[in-house]
């Protein structure tokens, strides 16, 4: 209880941190309570009311507060449901790449030698390929489009910074007194990793995870723009952007509102991440 109180006190001191937390919580609430909050079914088509403008413009009304898209779907409802998919993809992809990166970074940093060499060379090879191209090729080649595939693909292109960061943290921690002491006493490598290294690596991990969620959301957006992201009937912000991109010059609201939503979400996550980094891990220069 005390810890939580202290956490909130620290948070409230930083205006950007608070803003970030508020935004992130807001989006999570939208995602969780989309059913209750959304005025319409997000997949309900209304051919009589296609590309209706938002209510404050000529031709709009309060039935569709933010207007409708090219098939008459209500944009506000789709944005609320879209939060779900975008968050799920972002969080799952981050978890997946985080676990992979963490394991590889730990092994690489602690054991060094050949495993380190191999893992780091594989990382170099992966990192040299532009992420979006790798994702695009993989998705087109595998011809599938479900959430799971998308999560795995985004994870596959995001694990390298994790692995590299964790590795450099482990290298730093390896030199610490208590680790060396544990070694001389005869503790096994995995014991040391779990009890001494891992707890101290968490702060970096949390920070980079937060940023990674933002990155995954943006990647999903780009992939949906290219037509290989989330498919109908699932709604995602990236998908909405893609639907609205042809309409940008004539019916700007279809793409702009989800775009603003994405921007706010990313900003919020970034602010929160920055604050977490300042608090938990001041050594981290950021990647």
């Amino acid at each position, binding site marked *: 209880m005390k810890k939580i109180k202290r956490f909130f006190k620290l948070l409230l001191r930083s205006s950007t941190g608070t803003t970030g937390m508020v935004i992130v919580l807001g989006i999570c609430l939208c995602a969780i309570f989309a059913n209750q909050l959304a005025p319409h079914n997000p997949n309900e088509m209304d051919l009589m009311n296609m590309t209706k403008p938002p209510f404050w413009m000529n031709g709009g009304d309060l039935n569709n507060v933010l207007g409708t898209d090219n098939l008459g779907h209500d944009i506000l409802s789709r944005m609320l449901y879209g939060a779900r998919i975008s968050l799920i993809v972002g969080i799952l992809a981050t978890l997946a790449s985080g676990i992979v990166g963490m394991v590889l970074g730990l092994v690489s940093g602690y054991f*060094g030698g050949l495993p*380190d*060499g*191999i893992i780091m*060379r*594989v990382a*170099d*090879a*992966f*990192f*040299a*390929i*532009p*992420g*979006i*191209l*790798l994702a*695009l*090729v*993989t998705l*087109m*080649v*595998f011809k599938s489009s479900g959430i799971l595939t998308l999560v795995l693909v985004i994870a596959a292109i995001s694990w390298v910074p994790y692995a590299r960061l964790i590795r450099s943290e482990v*290298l730093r921690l390896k030199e610490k007194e208590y680790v060396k002491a544990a070694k001389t006493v005869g503790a096994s490598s995995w014991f040391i990793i779990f009890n001494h290294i891992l707890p101290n690596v968490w702060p970096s991990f949390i920070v980079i995870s937060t940023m990674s969620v*933002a990155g995954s959301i*943006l990647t999903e*957006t*780009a992939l949906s*723009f*290219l037509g290989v992201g989330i498919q109908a009937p699932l709604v995602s912000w990236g998908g909405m*952007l893609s639907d609205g*991109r042809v309409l*940008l*010059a004539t019916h700007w609201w279809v*793409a*702009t509102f989800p*775009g603003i939503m*994405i*921007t*706010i*979400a*990313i*900003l919020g996550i*970034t*602010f929160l991440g920055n604050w977490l980094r300042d608090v938990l891990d001041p050594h981290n*220069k*950021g990647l």
Partner: protein
Amino acid sequence: MGNYLLKRMLQIIPVLLILTFIIFCLVYVAGDPVALMLPPEAGETAKAALRKALGLDKPFAEQYLIYLGNLLRGNFGTSYVYNQDALSLVLERIPYSIELAMVSLCCSVVLGIVLGVAAAHFRNTPLDLFVNGLAALGQALPGFWVAIMLILLFAVQIPLLPVSGAGTWKHLVLPSATLTILTSSKIIPLIRSNMIEVMQQDYIRTARSKGLRSSVVVFKHAFKNTLVPVITIIAMQLPTLLGGALITETIFAWPGLGMLIYRGVANLDMTVVQAGVMAVAVITIMANLVSDIAYCLIDPTIKYQ
């Protein structure tokens, strides 16, 4: 240091090898291009014959070795869409990609340094907040939105610049502006935090206590040492600018590598895809090597694992 450099250069070989393996796996899984190469009316015998001629009926390992052998001889295969050697297609497009990437990179670095240093110097003032906000915004904006907005503003509403295509310096302005906005917003926070950290070092405080003017301190001492990780940062942006800029290239009809690879993927023209991805990856790996060498030369005290 010579030892380190040698080691570093030798490390490239396994990286390139792993790269060819990754790319080959993707091509292999992409499966049978024969169905796309021949019209749908062609019979099964024709398709089987073509498969045999292309060596597609051999086992995985054998195909990989043949592929590797071809690569070493510079043979990336033929594009079935263009009926042209894949490598020559890629080489045709590299100058366009490099032109766009270099211009965008230079502008991003200049902008990044100017704003990053300013934000660090005037830390925690409204200027700092403003720059941070801009950088965060730039990272959060979807790339295609920036591109289309620029077109609407500076090519349609105010007919100042051409909308799309390649040819004159004017055609370069909007696409590189788009990429600069997206890239510099990543560079600014990094330079800023580097500067802050450097400026807190002891030797800076010493310089200040000696009575040297603030600007002298900033530029002569702190800045030079900030440059070092900046080189790494720049090298990290290369894959995105060369190959990952395909959305920008598509919107501006800029005939770069990104668009070539995208079309290749769309047509399952895998020879083009693997030649293109290879090209981008190799350029990136070389750039990383160069930046590491530069890093080493500037600061020999760095100990590398």
